[in-house]
């Protein structure tokens, strides 16, 4: 990366919310910052770039106070917290974390999948409670290798999930907005058909108006009573109340969930279920990845301010 410019030539970057300390420290020498909520009129008029750390809501109103804005740079993978319609109509560029988190998210999706199918977390609880010989036979679980896996969204994360599960001998198919000619897996145009032909459904796509609640009762019935849902995308991809009903009624066999419709609220009913594995929206992040995100953010901002092509622009 180029050496940081002298202090008074640093470009101004507006912040949607305060940066995490690691980010702030890493970026301080390269840019000047102002916090959107506190910014004075001069800063608001000057700011051409808005850096969105974390997942705060960024609305048309927020964007509206920044007349010179041209770039919205996000540190996350999913950008459903940003009003993309407003960005589109103003001709703004939006960048995300690109592939910085992709491996970690994919790793975690597989970890959840194995944990659900092989009851890894449940086994751990069992042993910690001191039960072993006392309680007789432990239930048989189901083999991971060779399962038919349907991946929804074959982007950076989904394609890595596919590669990992292929090494387990799983048969991978996928559904996305359009087929990816270079992908070596069968494309299934209808989500319901993907579910019908899969033992496991992995959600790794963006949350948009089209994909909201895409996993509904119909899809879950198609997935079927031995089927498992793994969600490392967004809670809103799944009709959550319907998911609870389907789990309770045995319409599907189990779920591995890293995301929920109203985080950090986890529906209490899930807490009592043995056939689900729950986590706190952690798929995306390891300490090693934070460095990766910083690189992407800096690369995007540097490219923007020097008129070069963005590194991880999103199609709006």
């Amino acid at each position, binding site marked *: 990366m180029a050496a940081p410019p002298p202090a008074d030539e640093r470009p101004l970057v507006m912040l949607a919310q305060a940066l995490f300390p690691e980010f702030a420290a890493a970026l301080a020498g390269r840019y000047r910052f102002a916090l959107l909520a506190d910014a004075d009129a001069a800063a608001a008029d000057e700011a051409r770039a808005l850096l969105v750390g974390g997942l705060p809501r960024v609305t048309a109103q927020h964007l509206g106070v920044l007349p010179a804005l041209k770039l919205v740079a996000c540190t996350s993978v999913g950008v459903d917290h940003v009003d993309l319609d407003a960005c589109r109509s103003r001709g703004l560029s939006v960048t995300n974390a690109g592939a910085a988190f992709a491996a970690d998210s994919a*790793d975690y999706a*597989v970890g959840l999948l194995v944990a659900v199918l092989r009851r*890894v977390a449940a086994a751990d609880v*069992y042993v910690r409670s001191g039960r072993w010989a006392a309680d007789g036979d432990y239930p048989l679980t189901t083999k991971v290798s060779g399962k038919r896996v349907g991946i929804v969204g074959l982007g950076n994360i989904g394609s890595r999930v596919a590669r990992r599960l292929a090494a387990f001998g799983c048969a991978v198919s996928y559904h996305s907005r359009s087929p990816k000619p270079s992908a070596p897996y069968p494309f299934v145009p209808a989500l319901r058909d993907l579910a019908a032909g899969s033992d496991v459904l992995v959600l790794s796509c963006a949350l948009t108006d089209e994909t909201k609640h895409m996993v509904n009762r119909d899809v879950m019935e198609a997935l079927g009573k031995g089927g498992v849902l793994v969600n490392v995308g967004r809670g809103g991809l799944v009709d959550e109340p319907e998911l609870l009903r389907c789990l309770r009624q045995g319409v599907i066999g189990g779920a591995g969930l890293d995301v929920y419709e109203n985080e950090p609220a986890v529906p209490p009913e899930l807490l009592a279920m043995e056939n689900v594995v729950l*986590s706190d929206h952690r798929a995306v992040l*390891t300490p090693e990845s934070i460095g990766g995100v910083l690189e992407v953010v800096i690369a995007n901002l540097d490219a923007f301010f020097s008129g070069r092509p963005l590194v991880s622009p999103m199609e709006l």
Partner: protein
Amino acid sequence: VVATLKLATMAAAGGKPAVLLLRPVDAPFAAALRDRFRVLDLYAPGQALPALAFVAAAAAVPEPPRATVIWGGVRVDASFLDAAPSLRCVVSTAAGLDHIDLAECARRGVAVANSGEVYSTDVADYAVGLLLDVLRRVSASERYVRRGSWAAQGDYPLGSKLGGKRVGIIGLGNIGSRIAKRLEAFGCIIHYNSRKPKDSVSYKYFPNVHELAAESDVLVVACALNKATRHIVNKDVLEALGKDGVVVNIGRGANIDEAELVIALREGKIAGAGLDVFEHEPKVPAELFSMENVVLSRHVAVLTEESRSDLRAHTIGNLEAFFSGQPLLTPVHADSLAQ
């Protein structure tokens, strides 16, 4: 008298060869055996003789059993073989062979068949699941969420990336090689130790486990238990692995010096462990229960529906091969393992 009458009933069932069944089996397995053999079943309802007495009584029926089906809980040694001199074939359904005196069997011309690759995939899958769980804290964050702590206290501490980690596999057999193949897809770098280097793989070989540990971030125990591998992961190896290192054991508890492992975890000399097996099952060191950086299970790596039915087919395959004078599907030779 009732006990021997029961045995006589079992032994009298038609002209099929007799098989001495010394492990409990589920209904489909029992039915499949009875279809083909006269089954002398230690676990038959109403059968009350203790194991060794049952074996001796079975040896005394007309046309005594020439084959037996056992599991890991049955020690096949000189006194066992003395009690049933008619046995010419031992078919073990266990994943390991540490319960069989292979040299003694060879001396008596008793053929031994193991479970082949029936379990290998499921054990490999489980090993990867354990490693993912330890490194990414799947179970720990599960407990956190279920306690209601996410809303109250914010995010649980992050785990650690798999990609780029050097994974040292102890034993690159059927299970170890499958673990390697899976972890490569996660971007792990595979190192290994085994009795001899394997020309067919490009992974880096280490002649001893201490050196393997010194150059690995993760140690996976996937080897058999025998004299050479007892406590193969000891205090020195754990120190060489180091404070960011993780141990996964899907072999046998005794492959690791368990007391030293607990100390290393307690003192932060290693970062965590995923353990499916323990030295003195069903006893698990209670100190582990309060550790957040360990994932524990009660010897379940083989327990899937699929391997249960594969095992049934495989066991019957070995028995049928033996009784028809064909080579066993998965024979074990005394010299194939360092004993």
